[in-house]
């Protein structure tokens, strides 16, 4: 079977299109690359959607943690503590079994027991907590002069936040936030190992890499392929976030613009 045929058969296998059965024998290099790459679609989906949605909640949580109202402040602090203080792996398990029990209460929760929604919700809340903490740190280090200047120009309330504080917060938080994004994409590999079933063997990149390693007893082929894919993904994220960073800092004098300094993290 030619490699082109394999790509047609398994290129979208993780979404349920193409060949129904996974390869049974042979396990060519082409099949490795195609299936693991196909699984990567899920990692990109989880990472992108959780990051975009989490961004807004993170802003809210960061502002909430800095708020004067004790109820808002305490609840934001607890939200951040709970999601940052416990392992994501346990959060996935807990959420899955929670949704499983809620299913008997109301059929609304049916969709939540499958990975595409249930795991997404967990990742969304998790990244919101981590980014919220980053944004909160940035909010606290906004130069006082900026805010005073805004006051002097007659900005107040929402317009001051939207035009002055929020962009400055993003600018300060961006390197750490890039890190968080990379970190989140890496964390998406946990989804199918933590209760959420890979229905009809539709899994993510690590799911297929693990499948091959189990079948061939040879970890030296699938995992390096997975690593290669993830390094490419990481580079893509750094590229995109670098562009946004340039735009956020476009008003600064050339030499003051710092490139992104990156420090990649481990598991959450």
């Amino acid at each position, binding site marked *: 079977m030619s490699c082109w045929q394999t790509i047609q058969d398994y290129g979208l296998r993780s979404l349920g299109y193409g060949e129904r059965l996974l390869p049974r024998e042979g396990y060519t290099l082409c099949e490795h690359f195609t299936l693991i790459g196909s699984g990567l679609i899920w990692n990109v989906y989880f990472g992108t959607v959780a990051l975009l949605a989490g961004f807004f909640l993170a802003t809210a949580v960061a502002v909430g943690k800095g708020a004067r109202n004790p109820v808002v402040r305490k609840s934001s602090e607890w939200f951040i503590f709970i999601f940052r203080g416990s*392992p994501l792996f346990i959060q996935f*398990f807990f959420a899955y079994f929670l949704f499983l029990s809620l299913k008997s209460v109301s059929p609304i929760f049916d969709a939540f027991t499958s990975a595409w929604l249930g795991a997404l919700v967990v990742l969304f809340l998790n990244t919101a907590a981590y980014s919220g903490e980053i944004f909160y740190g940035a909010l606290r280090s906004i130069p006082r002069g900026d805010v005073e200047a805004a006051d002097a120009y007659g900005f107040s309330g929402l317009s001051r936040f939207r035009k002055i504080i929020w962009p400055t917060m993003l600018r300060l938080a961006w390197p750490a936030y890039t890190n968080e994004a990379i970190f989140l994409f890496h964390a998406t590999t946990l989804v199918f190992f933590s209760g959420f079933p890979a229905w009809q063997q539709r899994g993510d990149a690590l799911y297929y890499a693990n499948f091959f390693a189990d079948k061939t007893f040879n970890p030296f082929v699938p995992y390096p392929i997975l690593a290669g894919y993830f390094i490419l993904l990481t580079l893509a994220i750094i590229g995109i976030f670098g562009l946004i960073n340039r735009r956020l800092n476009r008003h600064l004098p050339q030499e003051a613009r710092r490139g992104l300094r990156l420090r990649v993290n481990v598991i959450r």
Partner: protein
Amino acid sequence: MRGPPHPPEAAIFSFCADPASLEGLKWLSCYLTTVKHANLYIATGTVLLLLAITAPTALAFGFGGAIAARSRIWPLSWFGKGYIAIVRGVPDIAFFLFFVIALDQLFEAIRHKIKCPTWNQPIWQGNDFVVCSAAKLPLGNDPQWVHDTYGFMLAVLTFAIVFGAFAANVLYGAMRAVPRAQIETAEAYGMTERQTFRRILVPQMWVYALPGLSNLWMVLTKATPLLFLLGVEDIVYWARELGGSANARFTDYPHGDWRMWYFLALLVFYLGLTKISEVFLERLMQRLTHGQATTGGDAQRQAA
């Protein structure tokens, strides 16, 4: 009524003799002290043991990696820098799954070369990894605890390799953060390079390394449930086992699907661990800052 279809479960409290008649808190206290639950508590101990062994091992790996990266001998320096760099771009969980199989095969292949030199077939036969039975790890006739310990040791080594790379990165940065003047002063006093390293650089680097290492510790505690993926019967395994619906035919304590509550308990356990670590690390930072040439050290001197 035909009597209990299963042997009665041993109990710690005397009032647990007849579980069917119990209610409320009493029932719960009996339920939580069954022999099966002891596995969960032992597994909690396993997690703490893993932390206790892995943290110093990873630190040692990190120390070695940092020294290698600083070395003037270029193959060593490349090795150190490569070790630091390679573990960072890739999801750690992939490393865990990879190293557990790879290390196991490495050990078996080495033992195979030593113990069965007459074996003439290749180790890799298509999709099979074949070594002679004397080289198997652990040996097929070993008792269960050897299997368990071997699995646990593999997990520890895997954790140490992955977290060692991160620790190496932190320590490498910390060694470079020690003010140059301190090293020059040591040299001016006529210390050799080795003496400078041991007496000046290493004692001073910890205060710079601690923020990074604390962060790493937090990450390490949160990585411990991944033991489950490495095939160790850890708290995640037992939470799933014990939480699943228990039928009255097999146990004195029947209940529905309680896995949600078990994982909630694990969540709380980890939150507690995080809180304790935070408090402890803050104190340690206070201690280490004492007398250092940093802003924190200055603040302490002024307060005193």
